[in-house]
């Protein structure tokens, strides 16, 4: 008998430099330190089973990140949160724990807040006929027009809020948007990016 649980956490400050693979190991170790009744795989090399909803690129902060685990014993969601937080660092903190509602495959979009040293002409940038970015794939470099994929939520002073496709299908990395904007402006931009929300196909927040 094992009960799935979804753990929501934030990854901020120094923790934004932890790569996705490293984060996975970091969380496995935190779960071990927290001595929670978590299900481990039963193969030749047993390890704590956990799956992340949506990997976060290196250098981006996140305040609504999540991973799923399976609990093998009775323990309250508050206890899971408290034990895990005691085993984590300041920059990696559990916000809440709950039974999952949506499946990972239902994720479609993510919202990003971008603090830029230069936001001037951002709307002009978005109003171009096309925004071509180069993507490296196994077959070489391909060019994609990401203009139809970018939804601008707001520009307030130095802060830009974007909604971008995310999930198992289409994905656009906000860093790519910023570097395209940088190229458009002919300037090297300094950006602090935070993923602030993840949405499902029905438009509701991924929980």
């Amino acid at each position: 008998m094992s009960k799935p649980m979804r753990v929501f956490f934030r990854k901020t400050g120094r923790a934004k430099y932890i790569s996705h693979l490293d984060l996975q190991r970091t969380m496995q170790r935190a779960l071990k330190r927290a001595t929670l009744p978590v299900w481990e795989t039963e193969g030749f090399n047993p390890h704590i089973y956990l799956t992340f909803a949506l990997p976060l690129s290196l250098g981006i902060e996140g305040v609504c990140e999540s991973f799923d685990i399976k609990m093998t014993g009775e323990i309250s969601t508050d206890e899971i949160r408290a034990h895990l937080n005691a085993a984590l660092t300041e920059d990696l903190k559990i916000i809440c724990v709950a039974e999952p509602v949506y499946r990972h495959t239902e994720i479609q979009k993510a919202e990003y807040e971008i603090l830029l040293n230069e936001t001037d002409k951002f709307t002009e940038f978005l109003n171009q006929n096309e925004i071509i970015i180069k993507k490296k794939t196994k077959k070489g470099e391909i060019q994609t027009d990401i203009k139809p994929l970018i939804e601008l939520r707001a520009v307030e002073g130095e802060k830009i809020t974007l909604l971008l496709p995310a999930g198992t299908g289409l994905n656009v990395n906000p860093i790519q948007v910023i570097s395209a904007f940088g190229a458009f402006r002919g300037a090297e931009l300094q950006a602090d990016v935070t993923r602030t929300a993840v949405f499902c196909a029905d438009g509701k927040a991924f929980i």
Partner: protein
Amino acid sequence: MYKEKLDKILLNVQKPARYIGGEVNSVSKDKSKVDVRFAFCFPETYDIGMSHLGMKILYSLKNNVENYWCERVFMPLPDMAAEMRKNDILLYGLESLEPVRNFDFIGFTLQYELTYTNILAMLDLAGLPVLASARKNLNPIVVGGGPCACNPEPLTDFFDLFVMGEGEEVNLELMSLYETCKSEKKSKSEFLEKAAQIDGIYVPLLYNVTYKTNNTINKITPEKTVKKRIVKELDKAFTPDKFVVPFCEIVHDRAISEILRGCIRGCRFCQAGFIYRPYRERSEDKILGNIKSLCENTGYDEVSLSSLSTGDYGKIEELLVRLTNYTSSKNINLSLPSMRIDSFNDEILQQVKSVRKSGLTFAPEAGTQRLRDIINKNITEEDILKGCKIAFEGGYTSVKLYFMLGLPGETDDDLEGIKHLIDKIIDLYYALPNRPKGKQISVSVTLSTFIPKPFTPFEFEPQLSREEITRRRKFLLGILKNKKVSISWSDYDVSVLEAALARGDRRLGQVIMRAWKSGCELDGWEEHFDFEKWEKAFADCGTDMTFYANRRREYDEIPPWAMLDMLVSREFLIAENKRAVSGITTPSCREKCAGCGIGGVCNE
């Protein structure tokens, strides 16, 4: 604090997590309540340095004192170093992200001769003069310790003092003295004079060395020697119950527990075997308790035992049974490095196998009994074949074997002996009725070059010339042609430089300086090592590596490290050298005391 500046550059460098700190169990303190700040520098990259147990011990030891704060510092790779210079970021501590130039101590652990230029690079990145004489203030005091500190002479230009032997007690004594001197506004030279009164502290400035016309040492004054410090009872020595857990992968990402210190064997080439004497064991209870708390506090799923020879632990089988009872119940993998082939048996193999199968490595070092007797590697061919048989019957199909080229007294017969030994191992495998079915055996052979080191019976011996080592290697490769055998070897350039620095004197300071100035850094990395620059640095200073590496030293020659006392007597080393020449072995300390001079503190 450099957080903001670092945010601008870290995404431009490889594996940024190693430059930002903030890991689980890293220690942050309120600096207004801290009196002594210590930058513990490992002159290699994070990935290597973070694997090192000594650093973890001293890090926790110092941070356990409320008003001391010890931070970690590693050598940045060229991409990061370039970004730091471009953006005016000085070398900083990973905990506070503040420049170490303002700290009270900058301590380097000296693990390997080829990290010496990294020390200069790090001091320079810190915005400090690399020469000790140019650093006039009380802070920072630049200190060195670790195995290479047993001959720190090539580094005396850059350091203020060295710690001899085990750092557990002496580090805190030194910091406490500094705390007093700082509050009394003492000068650097006043502090250094007082520091020299502490047992185990060597202040090179207080010693004068003169040379003969043949370039050997004429006299070292004063004659007073500095004795290395040891912890008498290992059970009472400070042991950390938690490690900083890195975010990114490092070389050995696991819990490590030290089970014994020193070695009873006395292999004549092995520096660790002499400078870490006396032999001391930690009790089973302490080891088990330590491993439990480490695993609980780190979440590691692998633990390794640290020692010079794991199989020598008195009750090794009982210990392993107790450890595996715990580790297997927690899905933790136990690994046993440093196993001598003669202490390898069925029971140990079962314990290792019960969790996960890892590779097996044995070090016969030499191919014939004659040469193994000369180097006092007290194992027989029978031991080797027995160890391999147990391994093969236990399901292993590959073994890794270490041999050394250029050992004193080595002849071509000994090289042929390596071939015969490998042939016998392969024949043994195929003769076993219960060998793993349908699988080939693979033997990997690693050839290193003998490097004479201070405080060993072979400190008098020359390293062989490049031509001779190359000839012997070619000869061996020629007779070792077998698809089941893969061979790798160390680069002579690296070995000869290591040999020169290991037994070097004070005059090598200017060579190291020149080499670094001409661009030598990260010499331990094949892609960065530039031998020609080193050769030129030696030549520009009017010397060469052969004087230090390839020359036989007479028993009455004063070694550069004569002011240092590693507790093993020089008479003993000379006697052992003579026994080597006659091919006479010396039994292990457990069988019979060899009278090495360590006396009193040794309970073997």
